[in-house]
């Protein structure tokens, strides 16, 4: 199969047949037959429900996500599966928060998945987390970064893999402050109008306040806005010293391209930019300092082997969402192997024991026991000086991991005093 295609549902053929059979059985036999099937689930494949946006403004990232998790599942199954059972990944487009929630509910009830995984949209991750908590099913929220998800809205059944907004703001912010972009400067912010954008904006404002920067204006834009010319004109009129973007998905790409088009000279930075969106912006358009959770040039054998395998399989360089889905599946696999079970409670206990996971970075990561978020390194990045790029996608210049090797991994994450998470 051509891996560039992104089918809405990813099934292996015989599993598909089984699902049809099952649907037929339920239709024919009703609830009475459902019991033997439950018993069967203990010996059949381990079903994992995977939801991520495959269309819309996060769709391009979702494609990387699906490819990453599929690669992990294939590797696990090729090595004999987990506890002698194959892993069956049911991957679907989450579309929007409402659809995501109903699909998650259906996956639990009808597809009998043992675990839920995925997401990039913070809004959809929130609704899935609620479904997971109601059904006491484990949900690994992989690519959603909103602070509220792991703060006010945290729950016992949800674990968060990606770096939270606060870490992103701190990672890029400290680099910005070092370069003198913040102290005593006038800053204009641009924010996507949904939970993630508002979270970024809140964390960014707090960071600027701590570092003596003044926010002189903020434009809140709808997530489907594609033309920023009106905002650009307004920002120019305000004459800021720095433009800080709190935009989600491919909006950043749009913004920086149009910014370059207008040839404005105020420095632009921001607290969210996925590698795929940075690539799409192109070398000539991008500048500033940005944070990322992972990049393909990390010099660890794990990352280099992953990049090589991924590139061979899909014929393109993996983006951070491909990596994070891959390691998430591998973390779950480790938990299943170590606990020798697929029992939700035992897996939660294992994660909460702050067990260490090799996430292909220099330092291992672990889930913080009281708010369930993965503690890990992050990286600031900027753009290479002109002429240094070896090929079209080679223009990003990645910085050293933060926190530094001698500092605790928790350094950039919100401390207990600032996190409202109560389980």
């Amino acid at each position, binding site marked *: 199969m051509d891996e560039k295609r992104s089918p809405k549902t990813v099934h292996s053929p015989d599993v598909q047949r089984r699902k049809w059979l099952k649907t037929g059985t339920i239709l024919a036999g009703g609830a009475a037959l459902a019991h033997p099937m439950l018993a069967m689930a203990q010996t059949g494949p381990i079903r994992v429900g995977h939801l991520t946006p495959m269309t819309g403004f996060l769709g391009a990232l979702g494609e990387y996500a699906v490819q990453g998790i599929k690669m992990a599942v294939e590797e696990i199954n090729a090595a004999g599966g987990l506890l002698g059972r194959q892993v069956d990944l049911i991957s679907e487009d989450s579309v929007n928060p409402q659809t995501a929630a109903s699909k998650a509910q259906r996956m639990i009830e009808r597809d009998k998945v043992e675990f839920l995984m995925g997401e990039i949209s913070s809004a959809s991750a929130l609704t899935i987390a609620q479904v997971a908590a109601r059904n006491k099913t484990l949900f690994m929220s992989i690519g959603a970064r909103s602070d509220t998800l792991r703060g006010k809205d945290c729950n016992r059944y949800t674990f968060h893999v990606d770096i939270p907004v606060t870490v992103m703001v701190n990672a890029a912010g400290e680099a910005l402050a070092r370069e003198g972009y913040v102290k005593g400067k006038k800053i204009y912010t641009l924010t996507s109008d949904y939970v993630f954008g508002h979270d970024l904006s809140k964390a960014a404002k707090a960071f600027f306040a701590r570092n003596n920067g003044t926010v002189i204006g903020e434009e809140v834009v709808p997530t489907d806005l594609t033309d920023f010319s009106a905002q650009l004109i*307004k920002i120019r009129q305000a004459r800021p010293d720095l433009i800080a973007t709190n935009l989600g998905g491919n909006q950043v790409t749009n913004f920086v391209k149009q910014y370059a088009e207008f040839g404005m000279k105020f420095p632009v930075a921001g607290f969210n930019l996925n590698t795929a969106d940075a690539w799409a912006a192109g070398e000539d358009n991008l500048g500033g300092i940005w944070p990322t959770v992972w990049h393909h040039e990390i010099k660890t054998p794990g990352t280099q082997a992953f990049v090589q395998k991924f590139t061979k399989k899909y014929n393109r360089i993996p983006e951070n969402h491909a990596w994070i889905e891959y390691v998430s599946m591998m973390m779950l696999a480790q938990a299943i192997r170590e606990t020798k079970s697929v029992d939700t409670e035992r897996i939660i206990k294992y994660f909460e024991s702050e067990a260490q996971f090799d996430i292909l970075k220099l330092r291992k990561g672990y889930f913080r026991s009281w708010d369930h978020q993965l503690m890990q390194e992050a990286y600031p990045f900027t753009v290479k000086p002109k002429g240094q790029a070896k090929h079209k996608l080679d223009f990003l210049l990645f910085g050293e991991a933060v926190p530094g090797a001698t500092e605790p991994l928790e350094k950039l994450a919100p401390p207990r005093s600032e996190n409202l998470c109560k389980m």
Partner: protein
Amino acid sequence: MEIVYLLEQIVNGLVLGGYYLLLAMGLSLIFSVGGIVNLSHGAFYALGAYLSLEVIKYAGFGASLFITPVLVGLIGIAFERFLLRRFYTADPILSLLVTFGLAMVAEQALRMIWGSAPLPSGMPPQFKGNVMLGEFMFSKYRLFILAVVICVMGGIWLLLHKTSFGRVVRAGIQKPDMVAVLGIRLQPYMVTVVVLGVASAALGGVLFGPIAIVHPAMGTEIMTVAFVVVVIGGLGSFWGVVLAAFLVGVVRGVTTHFAPAASEASMYILMFLVLMLRPRGLLGERIERFE
């Protein structure tokens, strides 16, 4: 000072209007002459943007401005000949469904061929930057786009109002039965109308690829605005569409200035008001078929 800023937004809105116009004009023409609501119009815009990236690789941006619309126009011929032609006299719901389906097929086809990740697209460096006129800032590239749009629209206006082809098309919009009585078949004219429509949508894709993101859903995204413009402008009127496109652009710009949160909603409010006060659109003609 405030008034200068406002003027700046108004001028920017006019440029934005030009962008809507490229899509809305074709949409309006195809609907007015053929009675078909072409929901797949955005697909030709997206196709234009994608093909343009390929053409640019071999022939450069300047050549792509001409070659890409021609290529998409050729596809438009097939689109009219094998698909639209079957639906001129059929129930409008059928053409609505078929073009809606085609839009989805087209989007997925783009995803299959070029992948769902947005493609890097840039403009020739000489277009980058701005032109300052006193306190006014213009993007060089957008001024260029506006110039191209004015040329294209001028061409379409001449074609519709100064040629025998245009006379038949305009008569066909107004009184198709009368045209038929005179022994003129409208069908052959539809090929040209469709080609004009989809080629200008493709030109929109070529022009906006460099400042927007080239991704499979770009066609779907643009369709809503294009429809709003057609509805506000009214059917069958060249100037109605032009007026509506610029109006929507300006209203968006001005609301961004005063009430940023309402900027996206503003065009729908405008449409609502126009439909309440003047159901056939600002300059819409009274068309027998649709009354």
